[in-house]
């Protein structure tokens, strides 16, 4: 897992390795599972509408399948430029 911006700040770390059960097959399910593991994650992910995701560096909707993803990133909407 990679976290950016205020998601990173609320989680308290930029990266962690997780091993979700096999029935966690989408990004949204992964977020739900992480939120159930700790109150820190639950707080960081409180408002799902404000979260965006990338799977193996490709931007995807939260309902996208995880497949055999090695790298999942969770972050707020982007604000560059």
């Amino acid at each position, binding site marked *: 897992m*990679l976290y*950016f*911006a*205020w998601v*990173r700040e609320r989680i308290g770390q930029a990266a962690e390795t997780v091993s979700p059960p096999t029935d966690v097959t989408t990004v949204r399910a992964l977020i739900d599972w992480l939120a159930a593991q700790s109150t820190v994650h639950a707080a960081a992910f409180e408002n799902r509408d404000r979260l965006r995701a*990338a799977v193996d*560096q490709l*931007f995807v909707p939260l309902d996208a399948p995880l497949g055999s993803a090695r790298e999942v*990133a969770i*972050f*707020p*909407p*982007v*604000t*560059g*430029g």
Partner: protein
Amino acid sequence: MIAVTVSTAVIDQGAEFEAIAATGAGGIATFVGLVRSDDGVAILSLEHYPGATEAALITLCEQAAARWDLIGVRVTHRVGDMRPGEIVVFVGTAARHRGAALEACAFLIDRLKTEAPFWKKETRGDETSWVEPRDSDDAAAARWKG
């Protein structure tokens, strides 16, 4: 010729312009985003997603090159901490015809704002806050659809 750079180095507008003008094109359009001097921000911090950022910018440049007849496309984005008056982003497009250069330049900055993984944090005095995305940015990016 596509050139994408993401770096903590100060962006030298003159050097960026020379690089895109070296294509020999008749028209060069540029957009430069700077840290504003007038709204009390002392430090603007740019975080990004290394690897994914460069890939997203290259994809945008390739889309622009496919849509308009361009001789060169250059996007240079700074990350890390910067001060008022410093350059956040340089977008430069070179083309035979000015319309292509101007439209591609507008396309690139509009889409970069909504599709490239950068996040801005502003420091005002002792307060820091993450910049919220603007609906107008989504609208600006959407007008290039289709």
